[in-house]
């Protein structure tokens, strides 16, 4: 009997069932789309924020004050300390190595071009480096081993806002250079021209492969690869003055603000394994003990704030939308149960008790919810994929297995909840009155 009514319900009332199922499908689609989007938003926004550039600056530990304006330090008169170029791959051996998106070394000097003084900057443009195998000891004593790898990095990845007319210079050809747009204007240089520079009575000819404009201090610099800068400026062949690092961070919370010196080993391990900006700094200084790493506050802070705001915003939108679509679905279910008052009256008249009626209706609602959820989930997932792909330019990274059960539970429960209220009302009705058509 139970199953026959159930079967008949689905076969005979196609139109009405379709409406109920579609309503649940919509609700489920919203649930799964929004949940997927808001779970991934932190990562997507974080990646977008990389466009603002490096958030950590690494310099050698020094006791002298650099003469520094706009990120360029003009040789301080004290002895100059350097970061060793061959140590740079160690930056990618820290615990959070995978969250380090890019880094680039810098070496500055002032050279003469004719009567003009220009800043010569040596860096990596786009370079593949070998990362050695490494092992990290967590504060609780666990040892994590990582195998060797390769990593492509340099200014081209670190500073995506650079507008280069012409080509990027090569990391292997020391005669190539990229010239800042202000210098190009001043010296009348075009792509393909030769720029002659003099440093301490030695002359060098550089080919201009590209002209860069950023609106900032880069417009007044000449860029060559790091080896060329070391040679021209007469520095040791490992010399690096500064490294800029771009790391994907997590916004600071309570744990991040606790001084890590005071943490118990368990808490310290938890902290060590969270990608806060402070953790990166700690781990970089651990990997290269002779450097000082610092957060570039305007990038790191703003990044943290934006991430936090966006995650919260999307969480709230998700909760509201899921709540509202649940109520909307419930009201559809309500309307469809209300319609069946006569049926309920008939069932009661031929001897069904309230429990049987209730079981019948809840089973129907459950099936509607399940079907709606199963159909709605892929639609929502597609919508989330559309957002990720078209707006952030990356596919949804990992299929989160919790989303399907969440969607199904939401779908089934809203369908059930929507049926309960009208059903209780319907069960109070007098079969005779309903059948008479009142």
């Amino acid at each position, binding site marked *: 009997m139970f199953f026959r009514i159930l079967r008949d319900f689905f076969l005979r009332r196609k139109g009405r069932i379709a409406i109920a199922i*579609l309503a649940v499908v919509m609700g489920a689609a*919203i649930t799964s*789309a929004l949940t997927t989007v808001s779970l991934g938003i932190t990562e997507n926004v974080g990646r977008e924020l990389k466009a603002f550039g490096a958030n950590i600056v690494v310099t050698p530990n020094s006791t002298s004050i650099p003469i520094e304006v706009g990120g360029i330090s003009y040789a301080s008169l004290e002895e100059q300390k350097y970061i060793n170029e061959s140590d740079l791959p160690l930056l990618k051996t820290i615990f959070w190595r995978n969250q380090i998106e890019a880094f680039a070394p810098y070496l500055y000097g002032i050279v003469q071009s004719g009567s003009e003084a220009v800043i010569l900057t040596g860096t990596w443009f786009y370079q593949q480096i070998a990362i050695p195998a490494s092992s990290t000891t967590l504060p609780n004593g666990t040892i994590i081993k990582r195998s060797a790898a390769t990593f492509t990095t340099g200014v081209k990845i670190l500073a995506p806002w650079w507008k280069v007319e012409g080509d990027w210079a090569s990391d292997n050809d020391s005669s190539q250079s990229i010239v800042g747009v202000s210098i190009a204007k001043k010296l009348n240089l075009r792509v393909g021209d030769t720029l002659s520079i003099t440093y301490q009575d030695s002359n060098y000819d550089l080919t201009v492969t590209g002209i860069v404009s950023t609106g900032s201090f880069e417009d007044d610099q000449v860029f060559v690869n790091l080896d060329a800068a070391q040679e021209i400026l007469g520095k040791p062949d490992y010399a690096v003055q500064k490294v800029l690092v771009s790391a994907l961070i997590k916004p600071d919370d309570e744990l991040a603000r606790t001084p890590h010196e005071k943490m118990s080993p368990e808490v310290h391990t938890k902290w060590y394994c969270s990608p806060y900006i402070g953790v990166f700094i700690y781990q970089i200084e651990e990997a290269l003990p002779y450097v000082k790493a610092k957060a570039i506050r305007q990038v790191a802070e703003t990044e943290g704030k934006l991430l936090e705001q966006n995650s919260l915003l999307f969480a709230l*939108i998700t909760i509201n939308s899921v709540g509202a679509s649940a*109520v*909307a679905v419930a009201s559809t279910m309500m309307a469809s149960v209300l319609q069946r008052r006569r049926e309920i009256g008939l069932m009661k008249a031929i001897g069904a008790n309230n429990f049987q009626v209730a079981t019948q209706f809840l089973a129907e609602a459950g099936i509607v919810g399940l079907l709606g959820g199963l159909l709605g989930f892929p639609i929502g997932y597609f919508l989330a994929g559309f*957002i990720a792909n078209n707006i952030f330019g990356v596919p949804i990274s990992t299929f989160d297995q919790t989303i399907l059960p969440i969607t199904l539970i939401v779908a089934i429960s809203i369908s059930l909840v929507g049926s309960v209220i009208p059903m209780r009302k319907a069960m109070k009705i007098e079969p005779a009155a309903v059948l008479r058509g009142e």
Partner: protein
Amino acid sequence: MRASLSHRKSRVIIAVISVVLGVSLAAALLDISFDIGERTSVTLRGYGANIILVPKEATLQVGLGGLGFGTMSGGSFIEENDVAKIETLSSANDLVSYVPVLYSIIDISGQKAVLSGVWFDSLMSINPSWKLTGNGIQNREDTQSAVIGANIAETLGARLGDEIEIAYEGKVYRFNLTGTFSTGASEDNQVFINLKVAQEMTQNKGLLHMVQLSYLAGKVNLYTQAEELARSIPSADAKVLSQVAESEASFLNKIQTVITVLAVGVLAASAFAVTSTISTSLLERKNEIGLMLALGADSKKISQIFFTEATIIGVIGGLLGYLFGVGLASLVWLQVFNVPILPRPITIPIVLLIAIGVTFIASVIPVRQALRINPTVTLKGE
């Protein structure tokens, strides 16, 4: 007509509730997508200046305005008098703040360092992410106070309240160290005093090396703004910091697009839910329509009644929904940004149109279906 609405209270209430819910969600998301850009651009101001003014006649700027290699070699300047024009431009409303800067190289405890003469209050509002320990320089006339970068403070072992000695061209000046500055950028290696004091000290009265400006992203076109600035300040060139400017614009765009896509999705879903609720409840009224037909009403008259009903439900639901929606959006805003949302009048017609449209569409199918039926059959109860 009145009877139709008042006699079937529960059913009308369900219809109104479903419209209210759908509309409130749509209104909330519309409001959010209108306002998100502005809110985010306020947060994005944490990145600092997006336009800078530099001297026009500059020889190549090794450092800034001829500040080179430990010496101050004349260089060229911006006239401070010209800079006041920034505040008279039409874009002044979207200007967060601007700060004029004069650099020089000084000696501090026997080491060379960069001295920046600034308006300290403006510097702080342009760079809200910089961390100041202690006090800033409270007013622009203060000749006693200095703030130093964290790196200098650490190197010199200077502490708040200390007296620091700054030597410039053989003369020694004394300042009270009121605060230290942690920025992670070059400013960690600089000493800050009031612009006026720095100008007098270096005999560069009325002259500047640079002006940093911060405009709200998304509100002004920074490139046209830069052109306008360059036109009105003859001694300066205006440059857009593309790192900040372009990233801001693209970030804002993306966030806004995500919200809009979600708004449209949610809107479609709630429109559908409303449609289905109303259709279901109208299907039930077949009897009524049959009775009307039997009593001699023509289809036009019946349609009129039902569509008027739909309009009333749509208007009531739409207005209530709008109010709920604004409340909802405001709650979200208070949680996320600590400010209430600014309701946009434009949302009212949009949501009303949607509400009435959806209710109408929802009514069309069941009413047409009902009109086609044979009154006697319906009245018999089949």
